[in-house]
């Protein structure tokens, strides 16, 4: 007859220190990814590549290299920006429904916080996992873009850092939102339609923002995608100046910090009641 060994004396569980606890959550996500990675490929890797091919090679064949494209072929000009667009889309995708599900449908967040893991460690694990996913997808994008002839310098590897930073700056506020909504996540549709879409079109990805009307320019400064795109192109093509780079990084780090602060508050409020 099967017996559970020695439960009476002393429990075997113990408290795990914070960074390790967050990492155990990453392990948990990895177990999921091992089984289900193929279901994420289209939205995470194929979609940005399709954009790169359609816009960079198709539409781009009609664009002469000029000052607006830094005198580069349009495909090459587009690649580092498309990399960051992928980060934005992955970040919002990974931070919205999957996080809401942890609270609402799958409810596995409640299971995790019944263990020694705290809501803060749970959140940290989620954010680290999202960063890893974004970084991994970015590497895949860079590899494919290189094969397509869209990469001319190794600077694009530095763009990966800008990409992950942009992704995290976009992820954390959406995670905070996902920890707040209690309905079926209609708010996310709003984010995709009214934030992600216009941001993708008007953040200097496809054309320089100097082409936009003057009144629109300050609005663009609010877009984390614009800051990320500027950083990514600076890394890939060189010619960066300290001031602007510092400004872009500061904005993205600030947005990330604000998002994390809000998310921590929302996670605790929701899980410890």
């Amino acid at each position: 007859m099967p017996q559970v060994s020695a439960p009476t004396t002393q429990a075997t569980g113990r408290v795990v220190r914070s960074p390790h606890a967050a990492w155990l959550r990453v392990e948990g996500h990895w177990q999921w990814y091992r089984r289900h990675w193929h279901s994420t490929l289209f939205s995470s890797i194929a979609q940005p590549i399709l954009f790169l091919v359609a816009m960079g090679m198709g539409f781009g064949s009609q664009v002469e290299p000029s000052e607006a494209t830094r005198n580069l072929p349009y495909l090459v000009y587009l690649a580092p920006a498309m990399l960051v667009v992928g980060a934005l889309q992955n970040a919002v995708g990974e931070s919205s429904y999957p996080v809401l599900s942890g609270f609402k449908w799958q409810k596995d967040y409640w299971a995790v916080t019944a263990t020694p893991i705290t809501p803060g460690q749970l959140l940290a694990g989620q954010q680290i996992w999202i960063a890893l996913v974004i970084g991994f997808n970015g590497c895949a994008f860079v590899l494919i873009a290189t094969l397509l002839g869209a990469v001319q310098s190794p600077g694009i590897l530095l763009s990966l850092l800008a990409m992950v930073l942009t992704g995290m700056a976009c992820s954390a506020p959406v995670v905070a939102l996902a920890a707040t909504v209690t309905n079926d996540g209609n708010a996310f549709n709003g984010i995709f339609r009214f934030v992600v879409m216009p941001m993708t079109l008007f953040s200097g990805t496809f054309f320089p923002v100097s082409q936009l009307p003057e009144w629109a320019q300050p609005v663009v400064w609010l877009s984390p995608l614009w800051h990320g795109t500027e950083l990514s192109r600076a890394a890939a093509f060189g010619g960066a100046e300290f001031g602007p780079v510092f400004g872009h990084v500061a904005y993205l780090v600030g947005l990330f910090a604000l998002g994390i602060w809000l998310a921590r508050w929302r996670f605790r409020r929701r899980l410890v009641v």
Partner: protein
Amino acid sequence: MTTVGDGVLVQANGLVKRFGEFTAVGGIDVAVRKGEAFGFLGPNGAGKSSTMRMVACVSPRTEGELSVLGMDPDRDGPRIRARLGVVPQLDNLDTELTVRQNLQVYGRYFGLSRATVRAKATELMEFAQLSERADDEVEPLSGGMKRRLTIARSLVNDPELLLLDEPTTGLDPQARHLLWDKLYRLKQQGVTLIITTHFMDEAEQLCDRLVVMDHSRIVAEGAPSALIKQYSTREVLELRFNPGEQQDALDNGVADLVERIEVLPDRLLLYTENGESTLETAHAKGIRPLSSLVRRSTLEDVFLRLTGRSLVD
């Protein structure tokens, strides 16, 4: 606060939980001793789950004293949780992982090594009779299997105290009996159990001692048999009538036959020391029920007495 004596795992004094204006738990005193199976019995909304969440260290108390495993949940939440097993009311398994992965991933959160959780998962799947589904995803499993997996998962850290919130709600009778068997075995091995339920038979089967909660307060406390002795008679005579004729029987003075009578929508419960003789007397008075049943008193009768309403709702 009374000091936590030897072998007392959970001690609550004047424990209160409020959500805004709403009082979920209105000041309860409880002591759960090592090795016993302790029950919280009550209708939906009585405050059972709120109490359980406070003991599980995921819900800070509003007022009062609470000590779990000799520690304060407000200060030592993670340290206490490391030694608890929790079976929530609703299964919160990771349905996109396999049975084995659910156990292994969860075990890691308790700081167990990969080798330990691997061995533990195999052992627990055996215990929960899920070995054959070890590498299947959880999603398509039956409700009973998912419940057994949730219970198996709660044992991954060899908990000293196991908290079960309505462990068998929503299961078919066979699945319930299988689960009771598992829980009974754990108890035999010395695991302390705290169970909430609104099923009388479950409480009678599993609990050494229980409290009845109603409207956020404890209204009675004791062993099931002691509660039955204290609050009910030895036997109960159940009388069913054709629709509309129940009132005639009441007008005919059926209530005078016994000390206490409960009028349910579909039948009358007559509390008596001897059901058969009461039935004879009723017949002699010309009371003609459609059917009659003599049975022993159960916790349900205790509950009716204490709260004035039927429990299984």
